[in-house]
């Protein structure tokens, strides 16, 4: 008996030693949280993931880094506006943009860079996950189309600002993939064009009211043209998409299709473009939504809210006014724009004059007496709840139909004269010949303070940019401060690109080359 017991014991011991190495024992998925590995399963999951990609369109700040609305920052880079802010230290990083003296450690530079890759990552991730999601092919195709559009949008912002950037069309799976090299601009632009043409082919033409904010095929066509004009202007090249050349005529074809078939048109009233009533209206080809549906309070995670920070930053520093309220006076408008627009009727809808303001106005840094009227702290866009600075409700019109008409004209449409006339007659201006110069100049008048100007100038070459962006001895009648703070000299050694953020260069240990001029 005793002997048997011993044997039994030995057997038990050996059996346990062998059997206990069960693999599953250590596999412990989370119980109370959803993780990426068990999320992407249903159509609803895919929609949530898609919303997270759209979410980045509204990002105008990077937590712990800086506020950096695309609109405000690109206009400060251009001759449309100055840095502004309450005092020179308030907008130190903004002022570095304004004076083209941008250190590689500039926080706004870093914030922009991080934001766009956040969007690219989310788009890439969803496109990887959609394959295994339980859904119809149509549903999947539309989501992929939207992801491609959004990825293209983020890449365009990124490559126009930074030129030499890593091109990632799938997510990085682990630390071994962290080290990347910069792609050639051509590779990036061709990827953008490929994505946009794919998007045009699968996205719907009509977006029903309950989906306003999602992308139509026309938005992709518009963005393709905007990308082409910049790429062709700066590099003198055409896109190569799937080994086919995409040139002026191909791009124009997309625009003509939109002009003819999309149903998009101009508002009768130019200013309708900047009112709530005009949101996702007939003129809006691509628009980013903002709002205060969930009133936001958290200054530590501004991104969680949906307010338009550009509007808050650009609003006048005025209190006690019934029409404007407590902005931060960034992006004060350059007198040059006021001069350039002259008697153009659109000036009154573009520039807010200090004489229009009631209440107590605090005049901050680089005070010119002019503010943006298109995106501002006006009463119509005040929030009904939450921290008022974080809940400005105006949507950002990224591509308007008037821009499409002007792009088509610029690309050599046989209807160029008609397109130019439509833009001008809408604001009561007479026809002028549709020459290249006139078409180009119309963009300045029609689209200023909408984040378009800087890239329109850069694409015309460095000597033109130097001529436009260098402004000395100009400050208008209502300025505050020495002339020297309004004098700006463009730095063409940078070719108009921002530096690659220093910390990114550092982390790559030599695989990144800093942009020229920095």
């Amino acid at each position, binding site marked *: 008996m*005793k002997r048997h*017991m*011993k044997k039994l*014991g030995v057997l*038990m*011991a050996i059996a*346990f*030693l062998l059997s*206990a190495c069960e693999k599953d*024992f*250590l596999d*412990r998925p*989370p*119980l*109370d*949280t*959803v*993780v*990426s590995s068990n*999320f992407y399963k249903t159509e609803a*999951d895919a929609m*949530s*993931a898609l*919303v*997270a*990609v*759209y*979410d980045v*369109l*509204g990002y105008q700040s990077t937590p712990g880094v800086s506020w950096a609305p695309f609109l405000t920052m690109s206009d400060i880079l251009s001759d449309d506006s100055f840095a502004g802010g309450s005092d020179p230290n308030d907008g130190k990083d903004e002022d570095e943009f304004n004076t083209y003296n941008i250190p590689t450690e500039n926080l706004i530079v*870093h914030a922009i*860079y991080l934001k766009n*890759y956040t969007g690219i*990552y989310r788009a890439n991730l969803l496109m990887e996950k959609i394959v295994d999601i339980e859904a119809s092919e149509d549903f999947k195709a539309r989501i992929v189309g939207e992801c491609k559009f959004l990825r293209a949008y983020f890449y365009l912002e990124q490559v126009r600002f930074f030129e030499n*950037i890593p091109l*990632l069309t799938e*997510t*990085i*799976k*682990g*630390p*071994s993939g*962290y*080290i*990347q090299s910069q792609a050639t601009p051509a590779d990036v632009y061709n990827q953008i064009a490929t994505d946009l043409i794919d998007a045009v082919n699968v996205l719907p033409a009509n977006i*029903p*009211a*309950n989906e*306003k*904010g999602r992308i139509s095929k026309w938005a992709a066509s518009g963005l393709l043209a905007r990308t082409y004009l910049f790429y062709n202007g700066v590099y003198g090249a055409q896109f190569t998409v799937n080994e086919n050349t995409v040139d002026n005529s191909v791009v124009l074809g997309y625009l003509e299709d939109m002009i003819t078939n999309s149903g998009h048109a101009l508002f009768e009233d130019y200013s309708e473009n900047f009112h709530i009533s005009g949101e996702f209206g007939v003129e809006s080809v691509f628009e980013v*939504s903002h*709002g205060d*549906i*969930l009133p936001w309070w958290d200054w530590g*995670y501004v991104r*969680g809210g*949906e307010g338009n920070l550009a509007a808050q930053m650009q609003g006048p520093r005025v209190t006690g006014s019934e029409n404007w309220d407590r902005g931060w006076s960034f992006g004060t408008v350059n007198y040059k724009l006021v001069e350039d627009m002259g008697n153009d009727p659109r000036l009154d809808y573009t520039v807010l004059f200090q004489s229009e303001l009631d209440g107590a106005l605090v005049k901050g840094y680089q005070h010119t007496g002019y503010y943006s009227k298109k995106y501002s702290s006006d009463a119509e866009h005040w929030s009904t709840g939450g921290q008022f600075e974080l809940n400005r409700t105006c949507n950002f019109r990224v591509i308007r139909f008037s821009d499409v008409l002007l792009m088509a004209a610029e690309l050599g449409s046989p209807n160029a004269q008609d397109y130019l006339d439509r833009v001008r007659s809408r604001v009561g201006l007479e026809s002028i010949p549709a020459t290249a110069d006139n078409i180009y100049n119309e963009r300045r008048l029609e689209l200023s303070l909408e984040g378009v100007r800087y890239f329109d100038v850069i694409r015309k070459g460095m000597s033109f940019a130097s001529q436009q962006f260098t402004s000395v001895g100009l400050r208008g009648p209502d300025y505050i401060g020495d002339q020297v703070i309004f004098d700006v000299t463009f730095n063409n050694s940078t070719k108009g690109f921002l530096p690659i953020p220093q*910390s*990114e260069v550092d*982390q790559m240990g030599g695989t990144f080359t800093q942009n020229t001029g920095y």
Partner: protein
Amino acid sequence: MSKNLYKVLFAIFIISLVSSFSLQAQTVTGNVKDGTTGFSIPGVSVLEMGTINGTVTDIDGNFSLQLTQGSDTLEFSFMGYETLSLAVGGRQVIDVLLKEDLLELDEVVVIGYGTQKKKVVTGAISTVNAEEISKVPVLQAGQAMQGRTAGVQVTNQSGQPGDPPTIRIRGVGTTGNSDPLYVVDGLVVSNIEYLNPGDIEQMDVLKDAASAAIYGARAANGVVLITTKSGTKGSINLTYSTYYGIQNAAKKLDMLNSNEYMMMMNEGARNGGFTEPFNPNAVAEYDTDWQDAIFVQNAPMVSHDVSVAGGNDVATFSSSLSYFSQEGIIGGDKSKFERITARLNSRIKVTDWFNFGNNLTFSHVKRKGIASNSSFNGVYSSALNMEPLLPVFEQNPDSLAQPRYVNNADYLIRNSEGLIYGLSNRVPGEVVNPMALLEIQTGETRVDKAVGNVFGEIELIKGLKFKSSLGIDLAYVNYDSYRPLYYLNGAQKNINKTSVYKSVERYITWQWENTLIYTKSIKDHNFSILLGTSASEINGENLNGFNTMVPTDDPNNVYLDMSMDTAREAQAGGGAFHEAWFSAFARVTYDYKGKYAFTGIIRRDGSSKFGPNNRYGNFPSLGVSWLLSEESFMPDLGAINFLKLRASWGINGNDKIGSYQYLSVMDYSRAYIIGGTRLIGASPRFISNLDIRWEESEQIDLAIDLGVFDDRLIATFDYYIKNTNGLLERVAIPGHVGNDPPYANVGSVRNNGVELSTTWRHYIKGLKYSIGFNGSYNINTMTQIANDEKSIQGASWSVAGPVTRTEEGLPIAYFYGWETNGIFQDMNDVNTYLAPNGELLQPLASPGDVRFVDINGDGVIDDEDRTKIGNPTPDFTMGVTGSVEFKNFDFSFLLIGAFGHQIFNGSQRMDLQFTNSTTKLLDRWTGPGTSNTNPIYTWSDKNLNNRISDLYIENGDYVRVKNIQLGYSIPSNLLSKIKIKDWRIYVSAENLLTFTSYTGADPEIGAMSSFDIGIDRGIYPQARTFRFGTTITF
């Protein structure tokens, strides 16, 4: 008399009983003496082997024992002497000489899954035994190691009852959780707060990687093995121990009194350009000493501990029941710790080849606490900052008619007698009447815990044993707090709704371990092989709820259901987690005559905390030792009778991060407005890093063990280098990755140092004494941080921001701030303090302001000039123990000390106006030549004199008389008449004296996290305690 009568009757009964079995009863008498000195030894236990029949020697060393014939062998044992077994062989008188057992190296140490004689141990293991713990009772198990174990730094986190001590073995080995692994009776437990220190038989600290490798992936911070008491064969002993202590504040800071306060406030206002708030001739109505107000006089501490232990050849057991309660010196029962424990350990020899046993403990812990080291809402920090002009209770009708009382009449805090606590209308922010703050504290934590294991052991063939052990650790943790309506000042108030918060958490861990051990000696070759597996799993779940408008008179009995709120603001939450480990391990030990010894360990650990890519890791170690003094070729070493060299190498892991960190959790804070609706989006919060693995610590240990003068002096000297690589941190990753970083294995830290522990023991003419010293010197260096900045920001202080920082090449969590260089004595000083370009370095400075150093020489004083201004971690820590026994008296002491570190003295809120200060403020600069260290006192600090600088840094060195004790044992000849075996009474004092130049309340400041050490935010100081206690064994 009647007692004796009973005794006689009882004896007759026993004798008659025994004699019915035996032919005759035999009585043996004799005397026990010290083999070296020839002095008699009282109190020696004399036991008839294999029975429960025994006695002890009297004061003259004499004994008399009636044998029961159960055995023919007597066993003589006494602490400090070698146990002697003698055959009676029919003798009636046996005189015995006991040999002093000074050779500590013959002691048995616990090495994990077994024990080993210290003589052949190849690793670095420190031991604290029951004698040390029972002689100087500690409140919590962890404190037993304080000052007694070289290389183990024990720092009380604060003086609050129940606050666990910070325990660091061989330095801070990680930027994450640096707590050691606790293993109680073979079971890995999350903490040792539940243990009754009186239940501990032995604590063994595995310090080097070679020893700790047997616990593999969880051992990198060292391992503390705790063995609880088990019974021994022989008579059944019932022991009752108790003590009662009174605690008082050991030190009061010298604060400004009302007159000084008013003078200084006027000066601060005047210097800052404000109107002076007080009439210079004003006479203060009150002069409140807030420290007197908050410190409780004679806060009680009480302990009762009953244990019964004994056994025979078949079964032994040890069982105990204990109660401990301690009220704090601040807040009394608002800061209180209570612990009840019940324990049963038993061993049963089922057959000669099968043993069965268990260790079972139930414990209940109740803890009420206040913020113990906090700039915000700390009771002590409020006491140090509140104005002396405010009375504890406001009774003046004129004052009570002021708006702050009248407008908040419904929210005023009153004491039990209805007196209204005073409200300051001067001191702002988080500084409030500390007595009122105490009154509204209600948080209480209750932990019910059952910890235990059962095991069986089969001897398969001679020398080969199989052991299977199944353990559980089950805990219920309840927390509740009630928030009454209150108004303490404009910022600290709750005037809306009362509320109650409750949470319940349940954790259960099970662990199943199986080991095969084979031990064999062939001639002088001794070896053993251990093979084992271990599997364990932890499951946890929690629920919490919150509800509003819960009217009550009794904050201790508030429940969610009591809500009267029609707005229904109730909230609920809850979650769950699970983790698992699976391990296999092997150990080989070998020695030849004890002269050459070798230990090799390999453990393979799998942890569910890591992804499939790196779920398993291997943890090897090797150790060798050489007993040089036994070599025949060794020349005579003179007084040195024992000399052993040890060397070991090993690799351990640390897996103390949260669950699922290799995965990425979906974050639902994304949103976008589509179709006029805010849709919720989801994307991963972090990118996943399937490659994360445990931190890996590699350590080399070189050591000498020495015995001198027949082992009267023994010493151990260790040198070690410990490199921990792959520290788990979230550090910045390239922006193009597109999401926030996951945990990754980045960074390295090195600890290297030396340890010395030495004891001198001697026995002369009835006087037995010993003195021990242990010291450790450790240098901590962060050797790598894999982010851009090569640094990690640490803890913050008050509103001033980060005060510690961890950076490559410097110790973990060093103090970080501006360096100062005196005080500007006049305008000329300011105007001649120039940048390289000739501009003023401090254009905003005035005479009396602090001169800051432009560390980077860029011509401006800014954030970039911050530098290392101190190190909170001591280089050198030590303990000195001493004991003297003479006749029936015993005396012992324990000194602890720490050196080479600094303390950030941040108990004053200089950022607020009207806060009180220590009298150090009176030494401020008042004109040229008055001070070069204390700046001008001003309310408008344009020069930012109060920014974090070396002016807050003080030398943290201290030596503390941790314990001093005097005991008396009632002579055994008196005791034997009342059937008591042993009775000792003692008085002791804790924290009697502290020698330090530190000006704050207490230089012993434990870690609140790895990055938050040595910052005094008004720390709850440790009490000075006087205890009276007694231990009776029946």
